[in-house]
């Protein structure tokens, strides 16, 4: 097996890394809900540390002033302790197997040279982005708004690869596994799946480049599944195995985890949890303030530029409205040109605060389907936050 060589290397260096980690710098537990803690991971800039093992790193908001999120600042979220730390491109293969006539083992070079490449600008957002805003609070990664990013992904349409493998009739699902491994045999390997129709839609792709560069290791080097318009849980990192199945895929990560209440916008009541749940899927509509920043002080009589981003699952953002008086009155923001249906879209609005005081700014995006942001929302997992965005600022 060609993967064996590269994985053995991972195991050796992984152990070395863990041993080395004992020389780590320790932070006192001191206060919980601690102030923002920044950390640098390899190939990354300083990012907001949620957890270090496995890594969960949040993008500081100011990076969202750029339409494409720099690779070094793109958020990171792994599930399993055994994160790949070494890949040998001479031995790494993407394996395509299961309900196909021609199983494939493709090197990254073969993917680059034997298939027509495509590029898509697409938002990737963690299912739990903004989880820390839910009330009552829920356990899980306590993200603010930075578990999201927008990048130009380049690679091969999954359809092209499945066509070469010659999918047999009766295929139902396609599953995706990466190089990450569970820390205990009892922990389910992180494998996700899409329906065969979705997998062959021509847009789901296997990316070998992100913003025209190789992916950082912690963002999924050397290959990452890109599922435009869908939550990040499907964007399997360090993708190594694609399996075509003649039945519905089933495992912990789809049957128990990453499920949302079946009702509208994944909402349920804390007092009456939904009985019926479905796997999380497409993004809902949301916006994020980029400027001003939460700790910024504005001045009376001085023009202040408001700026933000808005996105949905690919229908397109039609309107963004902003309020500077806590939602009493609303005005249309200006929309920058669309740069791709799966990209986020920038919006801007000018505002000159008249007097000193505290102001509550709000932003509400609406897409081409007429879908807009929630007034209130809660679910037990803290998924799909899209409550009308609020930002409290001081004018002084």
């Amino acid at each position, binding site marked *: 097996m060609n993967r064996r060589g590269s994985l053995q290397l991972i195991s050796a260096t992984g152990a070395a890394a863990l041993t080395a980690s004992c020389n780590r710098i320790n932070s006192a537990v001191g206060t919980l809900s601690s102030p923002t803690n920044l950390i640098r991971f390899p190939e990354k800039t300083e990012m907001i540390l949620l957890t270090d093992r496995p890594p969960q790193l949040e993008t500081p908001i100011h990076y969202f002033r750029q339409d494409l999120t720099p690779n070094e600042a793109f958020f990171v979220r792994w599930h399993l302790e055994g994160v790949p*730390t070494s890949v040998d491109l001479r031995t790494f293969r993407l394996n395509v197997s299961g309900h196909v006539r021609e199983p494939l083992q493709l090197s990254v070079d073969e993917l680059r040279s034997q298939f027509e490449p495509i590029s898509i600008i697409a938002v990737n957002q963690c299912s739990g982005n903004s989880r820390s805003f839910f009330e009552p*609070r829920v356990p899980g990664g306590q993200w603010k708004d930075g578990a999201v990013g927008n990048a130009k992904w380049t690679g091969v349409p999954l359809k092209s690869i499945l066509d070469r493998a010659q999918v047999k009739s009766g295929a139902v699902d396609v599953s995706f596994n990466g190089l990450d491994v569970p820390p205990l045999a009892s922990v389910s390997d992180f494998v996700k799946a899409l329906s065969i129709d979705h997998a062959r839609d021509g847009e789901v792709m296997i990316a070998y480049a992100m913003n025209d560069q190789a992916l950082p290791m912690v963002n999924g080097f050397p290959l990452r599944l890109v599922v435009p318009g869908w939550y990040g849980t499907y964007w399997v990192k360090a993708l190594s195995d694609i399996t075509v199945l003649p039945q519905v895929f089933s495992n912990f990560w789809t049957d128990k985890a990453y499920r949302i209440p079946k009702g509208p916008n994944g909402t349920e009541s*804390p007092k009456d949890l939904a009985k019926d749940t479905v796997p999380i899927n497409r993004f809902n509509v949301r916006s994020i303030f980029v400027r001003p920043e939460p700790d910024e002080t504005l001045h009376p009589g001085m023009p202040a530029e408001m700026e933000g981003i808005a996105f949905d699952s690919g229908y397109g953002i039609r309107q963004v409205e902003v309020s500077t008086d806590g939602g009493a009155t609303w005005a249309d923001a200006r929309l920058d040109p669309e740069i791709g249906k799966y990209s986020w879209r920038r919006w801007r609005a000018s505002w000159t605060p008249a007097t000193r005081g505290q102001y509550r700014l709000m932003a509400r995006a609406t897409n081409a389907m007429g879908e807009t942001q929630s007034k209130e929302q809660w679910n037990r997992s803290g998924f799909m936050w899209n409550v009308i965005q609020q930002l409290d600022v001081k004018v002084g």
Partner: protein
Amino acid sequence: MTPKTKCVVISLGLAALVAGCGSPSNISKETDHGIANVKMESTFDSKPDSPVHTIVMPHDEPVFRPGPGRDDFVIACVVCHSPRYITMQPRFSRTTWLGEANKMKDVYGAHISDEQVLKITDYLVSINGKPDAGQAPKGTYGE
């Protein structure tokens, strides 16, 4: 599939943890929250033509104060994840922490007894708890 290879990764990883990292209590110096001064390494960066891309992960793990249940917490929980999984959470009720500890045992197969679940819960409540308020959010899977 390469299940055997995966076992190698796991066993080496666990061995390293058990050998050196299982008990932060032997680390004498505590530093303030801040940027970890851990050496960053990526051999790919220094040798762009190399076919082998390797990084070394930094770690920045909190030290936990003494208290009943601390040893059970350190031994059972830190094998699979950083204790930052606890410190990043808001204060939760005992019901919620008990749900989380039971989830680790029943769903993820942590090697702990029911008795240890209670001890670990006591410790979690002591460091990051709040009074029960009637209902509490059920534990979540995935994040």
